[in-house]
């Protein structure tokens, strides 16, 4: 049995245009105005145990909504999903003991208390046996290097340290499924790296099923082999990251550092010049012609350094979105402001 099975899951919101004040609230009850938002449009997905999947997509695409549906925080408008055999929005205690959700820049730990106290509360709520709790806690705090900080009030910790504590809290009960919603957002590079490494090690060891949403391609590239791209509430790609790159990677980027200054001749005949910083030049060339072009340039000029790379991941994904957007535009019907009287 797969860990996560989603079939035609949809979530639609009706957003009331509410104004402040009791008077307006009363009037709002009698004559509500609303707007319809399709957060998730009939998505289907299967995730096997032990997989590490990334959800990729622009803001408002429906990644977080999907995670919230799988966590049982919100109920869907249509469709089904099971995680570890449970229906998430039934909010069974048995299910809640088996998974965890971590949201970037959102705290569940008590703000004014040391993290250790929040951990203790966690232990009681999840009914973790004492020896197991101590062992897990120490293991996790060591892995993240925050052992010395657990007795400091959470508000005194830096953003990165807080995030680490949140992760630890989420993993204390050794969940079988872990949902991570932008866990490294807003963190400095070092903290991001530490957390990435931690997640990789943890997941490899414990074989937890993980779904991670992130804006940072570094996270995705470092951790996941499978990528699900979500756009406008729909899944537009579900497969391995490498084939996504291949699929989109029609181009390669050639970077050359010339030995004797930038050549006077016109380099545009070799490819699209995207960067000119003497003595460095970056060219964008079709993938299949890359090696030929390099050979041609080196035949003519002396170069100190040459590299051939894929375009940055962000660019690839962005292209994917824009092309998806173009095809979606025909089907996009703008949703007007409804009034309740019809």
């Amino acid at each position: 049995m797969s860990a996560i099975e989603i079939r035609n899951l949809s979530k639609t919101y009706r957003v009331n245009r509410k104004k402040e004040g009791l008077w307006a609230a009363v009037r709002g009850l009698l004559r509500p105005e609303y707007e319809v938002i399709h957060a998730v449009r009939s998505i289907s997905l299967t995730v096997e145990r032990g997989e590490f999947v990334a959800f990729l997509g622009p803001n408002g695409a429906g990644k977080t909504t999907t995670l919230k549906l799988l966590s049982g925080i919100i109920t869907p408008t249509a469709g089904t999903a099971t995680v570890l055999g449970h229906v998430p929005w039934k909010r069974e205690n048995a299910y809640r003991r088996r998974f965890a959700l971590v949201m970037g820049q959102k705290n569940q730990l008590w703000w004014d208390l040391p993290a250790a106290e929040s951990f203790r509360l966690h232990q009681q709520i999840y009914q973790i046996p004492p020896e197991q709790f101590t062992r897990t806690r120490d293991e996790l705090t060591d892995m993240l290097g925050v052992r010395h900080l657990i007795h400091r009030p959470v508000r005194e910790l830096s953003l990165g340290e807080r995030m680490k504590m949140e992760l630890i809290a989420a993993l204390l009960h050794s969940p079988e499924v872990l949902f991570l919603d932008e866990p490294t957002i807003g963190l400095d590079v070092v903290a991001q790296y530490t957390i990435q490494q931690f997640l990789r090690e943890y997941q490899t060891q414990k074989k937890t099923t993980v779904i991670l949403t992130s804006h940072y391609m570094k996270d995705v590239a470092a951790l996941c082999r499978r990528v699900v791209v979500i756009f406008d509430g729909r899944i537009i790609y579900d497969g391995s990251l490498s084939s996504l790159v291949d699929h989109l990677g029609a181009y390669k980027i050639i970077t050359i550092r010339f030995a004797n200054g930038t050549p006077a001749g016109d380099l545009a005949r070799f490819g699209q010049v995207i960067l000119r910083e003497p003595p460095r030049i970056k060219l964008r060339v079709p993938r299949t012609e890359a090696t030929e072009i390099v050979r041609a340039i080196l035949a003519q000029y002396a170069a100190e350094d040459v590299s051939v790379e894929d375009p940055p991941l962000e660019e690839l994904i962005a292209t994917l979105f824009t092309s998806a957007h173009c095809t979606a535009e025909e089907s996009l019907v703008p949703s007007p402001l409804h009034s309740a009287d019809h």
Partner: protein
Amino acid sequence: MCWYPIRSSMSTAILDTNPVPQRILGRCRLWATILRISIQERIVYRGDFMLGTLMRFLPIVTQMFLWAAVFAAAPGPSGGDTRIVGYRYQDMVAYYLLTMLSRAFSSMPGLASGITREIREGGIKKFLIQPIGLLEFLFFYRVAHKLVYYSIAAVPFAVVFYLCRGFFLHTPHGWEWAAYIASLILAFLLGFFLEATIGLLGFWFLEVSSLLFIYMLLSFFFSGHMFPIDMLPQPFYTIVRMIPLQYLAYFPSAVFLGKVQGEELVTGLLVQAAWVVTFMVLAKITLQRGLKRYSGFGG
């Protein structure tokens, strides 16, 4: 409370080198602007205001029933007209309603705390360089606030007073109306300068909020808001009569109900006015000393 930037064209009109009439005109224009902006700010919350004001009368309902029970069992002539410290039951209810009205004039929500906040956050610096005084600015802001408040609160107040008109067995005669209105206006002035002075203590004490809290507490108990001061036994009665808090709620209501008459009424008004002047002076001095102290610290 927000501070609005004063247009420079305005301030040039108030340069001290101008002749007096022009200065006054300029100042009036400035005050009018402040009034207008403040009124606009308040109008937005109209509906909420009305409902909120109406709800503030709810505790009086409880008081009405409570006092009915008290009067029912109180010793007195059989056949009604029991009096407690000179109040009949209806007078008592009328008293509470009138106190609500007095409080509408004398309560200054946010005044003291606003001042201390400006001091703490440095907003007070403006008043070292601008030609308008802090007290003047606050005063006119408060007047604007009250005017708007009255215009909206007038509706629920009128409704309640009309429904309860049966309780007003005594109304002022002739000049007593003028005296009553005078006492309300004086209550406003007293409330303003009293709370402003407390707020200005923020130049010396960082946390005036505890002081303010004590003031609120004492004010509620000893201003007559909770019960008519006449009920207090000696020596408390004499002591309370010596402090100015009674003029915030008790005195105007007593004037209306005819508890203070003739010569006593005139004296009362004069004493009330004297307290107003006292606190006005106190506030000004506190402000001057405070600003001196403040700028001494380099701001």
